[in-house]
């Protein structure tokens, strides 16, 4: 067969969401002569950044301080975040947010024209910028529209990247990608590569994540030899709609919404999250207290309420009530209109008049592609940013509204560093890379198309559902050795059955059954790293709660887990690397009225 077509650029970005687009602009501005390829399996404005609702954190107001933001983030992360990275992140955040403001993001404003901020979970001081409750949507569209300004950003829309291409010296020089429209495999080549492909919530059945969040970039890097770091830390957002998993933003609590159980009790006060104030008290909601506690704790409280029989039974399972009625129609329509729209459409509930049934739902993967504080992986020329990466600033639990800012700060940083790497390492051998892409094309055909009709072959949806059930059952909010072992075994079994997968569709144009099969393989790899990393961490920290090891163990586990891929689909090799602690030694993680950074 002939060679795949090759396309030459300076930097290749895989993923067109918030981080990828920010990186693209950074490169386009860093070096206007550079050609930047942006390879995305969907059109950029479909990327999952679009669904983020509540806001993006950055210190901007006079009553706030960088040190407070750092402390909130580090303590929210249960001290598993790298503090040098957090410092960089918090210091860069305001500038990045202002930059996005300059690019047209319609931030909600105060009467004087400055940006408005709202309180958010786990943050001692209100610092969350927002655009009503469609912050991610506005950020993504502002970024996407801004990229249209640059003639040197070349988009490969609806191109599904399947493999990283490394040159003879082990440097990453591009990817092989399937153009969905035609099924053609292309080698998209550059002098450096950035992965910005988002998270992998679709490893779980009940998630706020869109269909596209299947961990493809994580799996690609993992297979190429980069570790997946801290994969056992999966964030459950405490307030999703039962049944669909649609996100009801934390901003609804930031604006004053409360959580009550079957008995109408604000149950969070029973779990060391402080004491409630009346909803008409002007000091309500209090930061780092009650409903503004961190997501891991709130989700855990739900499970404990469920175990105690105090949750509400709905036809879609257990729930508690998120009550917004006291906010009134005007405030709801101004500050959180999307919440009302979603609740009305998908739950048949108008939050102005009725409380919304909610329950925890998989929302975010704290872990990801192991990168250093420069967003670089251990493969020269390969960078990663956004949810797919683990810097790490999120540690064992990410604070709401830090991830949108993370896209900007580390997307921009990855772009800058990748551009510099490309300038410093201009030469590489194209033919070897094209040959690898040829091999990848042949592998895809062999694996999914060429086998004779596999009667009784496995169906993608069946395997995916078994993966989902096993992950929720074994690697959910509370885990133990037995449940995790069952999940690890299940994934091993699914890998074996995956070899026997059968597609109905063996054609080229827009074969979304093929991409679903490729996505399932990504999910299996990523889920495997999650389950095994969770198995090895015999402590409880942040979002990782082991019923058989309920205490935090700093002596043994104040460390990042690193899962390394093994070729044969067997269990990953797990190693640990130290956490960078600079000025904030591990301490007790307390929430309630007087928690937070103690000042002299």
């Amino acid at each position: 067969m002939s060679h795949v077509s090759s396309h030459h650029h300076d930097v290749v970005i895989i993923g067109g969401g918030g981080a990828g687009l920010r990186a693209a602009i950074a490169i386009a501005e860093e070096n206007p002569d550079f050609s930047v390829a942006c390879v995305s399996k969907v059109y950029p404005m479909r990327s999952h950044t679009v669904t983020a609702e509540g806001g993006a954190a950055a210190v901007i107001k006079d009553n706030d301080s960088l040190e407070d933001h750092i402390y909130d983030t580090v303590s929210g992360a249960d001290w598993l975040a790298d503090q040098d990275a957090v410092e960089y992140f918090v210091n860069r955040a305001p500038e990045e947010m202002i930059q996005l403001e300059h690019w047209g993001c319609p931030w909600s404003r105060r009467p004087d024209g400055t940006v408005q901020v709202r309180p958010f979970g786990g943050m001692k001081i209100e610092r969350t910028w927002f655009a009503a409750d469609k912050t991610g949507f506005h950020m993504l569209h502002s970024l996407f529209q801004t990229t249209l300004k640059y003639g040197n950003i070349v988009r490969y829309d609806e191109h599904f990247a399947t493999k990283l291409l490394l040159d003879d010296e082990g440097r990453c020089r591009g990817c092989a990608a399937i153009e969905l429209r035609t099924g053609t495999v292309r080698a998209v080549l550059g002098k450096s590569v950035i992965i910005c492909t988002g998270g992998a919530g679709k490893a779980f059945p009940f998630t706020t994540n869109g269909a596209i969040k299947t961990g493809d970039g994580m799996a690609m890097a993992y297979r190429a030899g980069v570790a997946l770091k801290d994969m056992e830390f999966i964030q459950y957002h405490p307030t999703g709609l039962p049944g669909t998993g649609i996100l009801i933003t934390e901003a609804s609590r930031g604006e004053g919404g409360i959580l009550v159980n079957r008995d109408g009790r604000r149950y969070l006060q029973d779990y060391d999250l402080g004491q409630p104030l009346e909803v008409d008290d002007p000091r309500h909601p209090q930061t780092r207290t009650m409903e503004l506690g961190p997501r891991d704790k709130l989700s855990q409280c739900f499970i404990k309420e469920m175990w105690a029989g105090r949750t509400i039974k709905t036809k879609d399972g257990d729930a508690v009530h998120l009550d917004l009625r006291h906010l009134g129609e005007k405030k709801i329509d101004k500050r959180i209109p999307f919440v009302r729209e979603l609740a009305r459409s998908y739950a048949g509930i108008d939050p102005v008049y009725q409380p919304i049934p909610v329950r925890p739902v998989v929302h975010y993967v704290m872990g990801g592609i192991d990168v250093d504080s420069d967003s670089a992986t251990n493969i020269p020329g390969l960078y990663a940013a956004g949810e797919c990466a683990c810097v790490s600033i999120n540690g064992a639990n990410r604070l709401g509204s830090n991830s949108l800012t993370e896209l900007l700060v580390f997307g921009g940083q990855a772009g800058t560093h990748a551009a510099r790497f490309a300038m410093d390492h201009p030469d590489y051998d194209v033919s070897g890379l094209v040959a690898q892409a040829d091999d990848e094309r042949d592998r895809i055909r062999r694996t999914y198309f060429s086998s004779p009709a596999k009667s009784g072959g496995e169906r993608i949806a069946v395997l995916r559902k078994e993966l989902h059930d096993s992950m929720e059952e074994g690697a959910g909010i509370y885990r133990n050795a037995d449940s995790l072992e069952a999940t690890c075994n299940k994934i091993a079994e699914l890998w074996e059955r995956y070899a026997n997968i059968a597609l109905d569709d063996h054609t080229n144009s827009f074969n979304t059954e093929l991409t679903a099969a490729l996505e399932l393989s990504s999910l299996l790899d990523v889920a495997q790293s999650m389950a095994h990393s969770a198995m090895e961490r015999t402590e409880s920290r942040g979002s990782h709660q082991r019923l058989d090891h309920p205490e935090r163990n700093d002596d043994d586990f104040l460390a990042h887990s690193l899962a390394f891929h093994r070729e044969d689909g067997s269990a990953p090799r797990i190693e640990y690397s130290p956490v960078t602690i600079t000025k904030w030694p591990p301490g007790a993680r307390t929430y309630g009225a007087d928690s937070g950074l103690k000042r002299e």
Partner: protein
Amino acid sequence: MAETKTITLELFRYHPETDSEPRFQSYEVPYDEDWVVLDAINWIKDYVDGSVTHRWSCRMGVCGSCGMMVNGEPKLTCAAFLKNYYPFPIKVEPLVNFPVERDLVVDMEGFMDKLQDVKPYIIRDDVNDTSEGEYLQTPAELAQYKQYSMCINCMLCYSACPVVGHEDDFLGPAALALGHRYNKDSRDQGQSERLEVMLRSEAMWGCTFVGECTVVCPKHVDPAGAIQQAKAMGAQEYFKRFVMPKGAGATKGAGA
């Protein structure tokens, strides 16, 4: 004992490698009153026919991927509930006024080009450094364009608009509303540059204010209103150039 209820979906099928004409294929789908049309299509793809091809992602009405014709109306299939059609069959087709790539997937390259044409980004002569802080914008100034910034690019309006179907040069509701969104942004200074594009013969003037774009918009953007305002702005710009061709912001080609 309850018999399992079902509902029929008639899907538009077209494969570019084998078909010269499209056809409809019927599928029996279990009926669940919480399901939307998209859930039913996904069920078909997962368990009955893996070759059914469609786009989707967020399933919460904000990514804009899953727009299709449902019984002849452009809809986000993630917001079209089966219960609003049951027990009658539901006919699902790709969005009209676009070429069909395969089954329910349309070609949106032309749409993407039109978005780019309106220069949908902040244009300024003087760019402040980020160290000088944010550009001030009062809530009243924000309200001037906020509605027009809510477009999710789902393209339903292009299917509802007869002019899009007849006039290739027409930029269409979403693109024009987006251009207007930036023209109305108090931080922007690129109005003249943007109108330069919108003033071209049928680019904006092709609109005859049928108004269906606004009716079908799932995000209440009101492109029809935006286009009327843009026309008024465009007319002012036109007369400004006609009366004083060398006036502020005028560029080549004015007054043709």
